[in-house]
């Protein structure tokens, strides 16, 4: 097994016992060292839930009912909490979705970066601050020394996302979960941020699980991709292959429903409701099988 992250047959249910709804229905995803894998799906597909399960951030009413999440060969789900916390932020990092809300508004930027560094690497206050400045320079923030002393509301959205990226790379993790990191940004800023992530990934040698709903973003930054719907993996492969020759009808339908700036309107084909319904009824059939204790 060479994969740095191996999610196997993950089942997650949400809600109270008796009224629980499945959000992941046996999803399996591998991420190889140093690669960027896109995890694509629409809302309700379970893509964010999968990312959160890896980070141990599932909401309080969610339960993992089956499956394993192996990171560098060790099952994260079987690991005691303190041990897992040592990995988080250090070996596995997160680039969150919304730069406006993901920084603590009452703490200075520098203090927030330094906290990660001293927590995981045991740096002194002074060292942590110096390193935080270097990290800001690395994510192409001008005047890093000044920015360290600013509060999040004093810098732009794009800059905040750079700070969050700096924090993700701070301890040289081997895996980064990027949860829709550019969705909240304008297109021009999105491009710069994607370029930055790619550059840092190369220099730090991290693998990235890139969660997104945007096939365009996947096409630009991911080597491999996994298409998720109703908590199931529908298609998986090299991005170039999947986009050029989608095998699953859902992937094909998604591509046809994505408006393209380079094609006239007539090319747009909405996803047939019948297809979605058949996918959901298949998912619910699997749920019933699982409830009855039968193998799917």
């Amino acid at each position, binding site marked *: 097994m060479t994969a740095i992250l191996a999610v196997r047959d993950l089942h997650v249910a949400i809600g109270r016992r008796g009224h629980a709804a499945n959000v992941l229905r046996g999803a399996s995803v591998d991420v190889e060292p140093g690669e960027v894998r896109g995890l694509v799906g629409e809302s309700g597909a379970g893509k964010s839930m999968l990312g959160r399960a890896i*980070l*141990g*951030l599932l909401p*309080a*009413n969610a339960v993992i009912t089956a499956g394993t999440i192996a990171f560098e060969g060790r099952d994260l789900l079987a690991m005691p909490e303190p041990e897992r*916390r*040592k*990995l*988080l*932020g*250090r070996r596995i*990092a*997160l680039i*969150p*979705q*919304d730069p406006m*809300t*993901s*920084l*603590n*508004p*009452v*703490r200075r930027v520098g203090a927030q970066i330094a*906290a*990660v560094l001293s*927590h*995981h690497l045991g740096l002194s206050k002074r060292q942590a601050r110096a390193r935080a400045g270097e990290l800001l320079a690395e994510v192409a923030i001008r005047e890093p020394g000044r920015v360290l002393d600013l*509060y999040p*509301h*004093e810098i732009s959205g794009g800059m905040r996302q750079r700070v*969050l990226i700096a*924090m993700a790379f701070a301890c040289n993790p081997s895996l980064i*979960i990027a949860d829709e990191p550019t969705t909240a940004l304008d297109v021009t800023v999105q491009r710069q941020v994607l370029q930055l992530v790619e550059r840092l990934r190369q220099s730090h040698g991290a693998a990235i699980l890139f969660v997104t709903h945007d096939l365009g973003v996947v096409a630009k930054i991911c080597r491999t991709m996994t298409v998720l719907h109703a908590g199931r993996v529908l298609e998986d492969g090299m991005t170039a292959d999947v986009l050029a020759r989608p095998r699953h009808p859902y992937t094909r339908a998604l591509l046809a429903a994505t408006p393209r700036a380079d094609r006239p309107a007539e090319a747009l084909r909405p996803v047939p409701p019948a297809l979605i319904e058949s996918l959901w009824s298949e998912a619910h059939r699997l749920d019933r099988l699982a409830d009855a204790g039968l193998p799917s």
Partner: protein
Amino acid sequence: MRWGEIIRRVLLIPPTLAGVGLIVFVLLRVVPGDPIAMMIPPGASAADIARLRALYGLDQPILQQFVVWSGQVLTGDFGRSISLHQRVFELVLARLPATLELALLGTVIAVLLGTVVALIGAYLRGRRAEWAIDGGVGLLLAIPDFLWALILLLLLGVILPVLPISGRIDPQLDIAFGTNFYLIESLLTGRLDVAAALLQHMILPALALALPFAALVARLLKAQLAEAEDQDYAQVARARGFSRPAILLRDVLPNALIPTVALGGVQITLLLGGTVLVERIFSYEGIGNMAIDAVINRDFPLIQGLILTFAVLFIALNLAVDLLVTLLDPRLRHG
């Protein structure tokens, strides 16, 4: 932007106080009971009554009385108390420290208690024990300070008489104080035995004031903690390997405090207002107790002086809360 708001608030203080003064003044002038009638010995002549009226300025039209009174107030002269025959300003000044100390003690107890309960409640979120905390807080909150005073008096003063239930200090102790801030003075001068004696008397009324306010702090802060913990920055902090208690204290609490102070800080005025009855119940010699006597005795100048005193305190507290919120929140500080 925020500082502009604060300047605006400061500018609004004088008209607000003038409004308070005017309302009290007019209100008291329509009182059917005649204060003079209560002062004079039986059998006084009509001339005597008229003389007394003129002495207190009660023979002039209301508006003129108000103008005269306002002018005097501006020079620091609140008139003379009809029932106590002393200058109102001095009476209030002598009693105010007792009330301030009591309110301060109550606030300290409430904030400490409320914060601890809120943090425990936030930590236990989603567990069964959270329910018990919410229920307890709801109960504390529903019962107002003066009922707590009566309950505490009943429980710890009568049924289990462990604490004194009357006065500010044991009348048998004859201790000289340089100021009227007995508790603060004794603490500062290191007379801890005296402070303990004072606290024995103050603890029940302070607790009565503190309990509902503590519940308020606990409820507000707990809700804000829960909300702040659901924010992305707190979730992201968990993904960076920080433990939940560390996140609660370092990331969540400072954020939750801002709205809590903004919403709850204003409510300290309720605690301060509560001293009126609580002091009465425990025969504590503060301005609240004095105010009730003044109403019963129809002592106009004293009532006016006391209500203005409360109004000044309330407005000052509101302003202090605004300043505190501004200081706590960098978005407002630099905005």
